């Protein structure tokens, strides 16, 4: 029997009463049990108060962890969080994200004149003006001593340039009052369209750093005015990233016995000109510290091409080890996910292995778990080659063209090739020979039992020769 249950305040006591029907000397009666709940109720109330106070303290902590105390703009971590939220939103909606970097380098002079405390007042006043010039959806952060980064969601670059000018004007047009004198702060600004491949604030800063300028931004520049760039061809590269002008080309992978196409390697070209070939644009990207952004842009171009290729077979994509290590893995898998049933093989270049190949192991395993094969590119007799092969257990080994091209004419080269083939085979990897240009070399590879290959013998990478059926 379930008792009736009520709670009563009796005096200063909180009493829970349960009542059940009962017999008392043969007469119907009620049995009531009374329990003093005062302490328990008080404890629950205290706990609730504590929980609320703790939650408030946590919120305050979270705020402090993401806000710059002086200017009350976001700090580095705050803008990083905002950036990641924005990025996932952008990828869903395909909208534009523009970043504006504002640099108040004059602050160093100001510190010399009026000291740190005065400079803080100037910085705070500047931040207040910047904040009031922004839309509610914009994000602003103080990222170091005298630089602010602003993220403008749903903004085109031309609009971004206008906002940048407005911000510069907001700070510099009237002097910032600092008793006993007033000072002006003319900030340098840079505007960049954030490529969707970007995955860190550092990359945005790198992109922006190179185009910091003090003069007004032209609102619709065909291309930025070259002002003695620190890295040659950097402007070309920046423009290629912004305009997404990397294009993918394909080179067939051939079954050497049947001379039949079994797949393609997808390669990338930059805009026509000085940085068209990967070796050139990657050199510029390396100097400008933008390797990962560029590499991911290339990957995206290749994945886009893969959707149009027919027939496809297996598609080989190139990724730099630094990109694999530096990109959040869900991000990478996201880029490699297509609606089509397509099998990818990631080629990791041997040439960039600078550290311990063991650090790539988990990433390689992650690829394999997703059904993506892994290949080591440009395999030869480099120092770390054997170690890499043993550590990473690739599905495919691609033999560097240096050991293939002309091997039929050069007995020394032929012996090296033979040994490479034996080592790769012993590791259980499929072998693809690169750089096959003559039928004699092809015949030699067949003799060695190499099953797959690629090279100019079957045409240069591109969309010609009738075998690269890039249906539009």
């Amino acid at each position, binding site marked *: *029997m379930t*008792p009736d249950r009520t709670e009563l305040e*009796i*005096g200063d*006591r909180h*009493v829970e009463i*349960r009542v*059940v029907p*009962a*017999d*008392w*000397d*043969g*007469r*119907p*009666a*009620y*049995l*009531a*049990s*009374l*329990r*003093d709940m005062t302490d328990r109720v008080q404890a629950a109330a205290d706990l609730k108060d504590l929980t609320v106070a703790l939650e408030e303290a946590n919120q305050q902590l979270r705020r402090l962890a993401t806000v710059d105390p002086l200017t009350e703009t976001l700090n580095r971590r705050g803008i990083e969080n905002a950036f990641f939220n924005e990025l996932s939103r952008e990828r869903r909606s395909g909208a534009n994200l523009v970043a504006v970097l504002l640099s108040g380098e004059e602050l160093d002079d100001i510190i010399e004149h009026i000291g740190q405390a005065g400079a803080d007042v100037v910085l705070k006043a500047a931040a207040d003006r910047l904040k009031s010039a922004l839309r509610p959806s914009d994000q602003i952060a103080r990222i170091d001593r005298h630089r602010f980064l602003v993220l403008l969601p749903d903004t085109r670059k031309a609009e971004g340039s206008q906002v940048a000018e407005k911000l510069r004007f907001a700070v510099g047009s009237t002097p910032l009052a600092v008793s006993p004198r007033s000072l002006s702060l003319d900030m340098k600004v840079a505007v960049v369209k954030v490529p969707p491949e970007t995955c860190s604030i550092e990359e945005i800063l790198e992109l922006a750093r190179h185009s910091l300028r003090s003069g007004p931004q032209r609102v619709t520049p065909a291309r930025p005015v070259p002002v003695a760039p620190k890295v040659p061809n950097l402007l070309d590269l920046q423009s290629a990233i912004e305009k997404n002008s990397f294009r993918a080309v394909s080179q067939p992978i051939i079954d050497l016995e049947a001379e039949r196409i079994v797949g393609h390697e997808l390669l990338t070209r930059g805009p026509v000109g000085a940085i068209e070939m990967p070796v050139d644009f990657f050199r510029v990207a390396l100097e400008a510290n933008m390797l990962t952004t560029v590499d991911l842009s290339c990957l995206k171009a290749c994945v886009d091409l893969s959707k149009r290729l027919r027939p496809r077979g297996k598609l080989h994509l190139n990724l730099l080890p630094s990109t694999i290590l530096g990109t959040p893995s869900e991000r990478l898998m996201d880029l490699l996910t297509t609606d089509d049933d397509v099998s990818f093989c990631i080629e990791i270049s041997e040439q960039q292995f600078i550290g311990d190949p063991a650090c790539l192991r988990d990433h390689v395993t992650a690829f394999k778990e997703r059904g993506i094969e892994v290949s080591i590119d440009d395999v030869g007799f480099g120092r770390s080659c054997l170690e890499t092969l043993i550590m990473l257990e690739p599905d495919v080994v691609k033999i560097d063209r240096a050991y293939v091209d002309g091997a039929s004419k050069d007995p020394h080269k032929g012996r090296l090739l033979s040994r490479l083939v034996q080592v790769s085979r012993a590791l259980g990897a499929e072998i693809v020979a690169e750089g096959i240009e003559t039928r004699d070399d092809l015949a030699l590879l067949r003799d060695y039992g190499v099953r797959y290959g690629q090279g100019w013998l079957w045409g240069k990478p591109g969309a010609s020769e009738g075998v690269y059926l890039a249906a539009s």
Partner: protein
Amino acid sequence: MPNNLKNTALNHSPDNSSEFKRITEACPDGVLVVGQDGRVVFANAAAGELLDRPVDELVGGVFG
């Protein structure tokens, strides 16, 4: 108040009543038995403490 206590101790006879009293005296919860007329016919010591009244005064009074 557990039902088995009710079943064993509440029913009938003064003997059982005194047994019931003895058991509930040691119980930290207040125990009251109220007749259908609303009058208290039994109260243990804990009930007296909780309601801040002597047990003698509780019994015979109207509860509620």
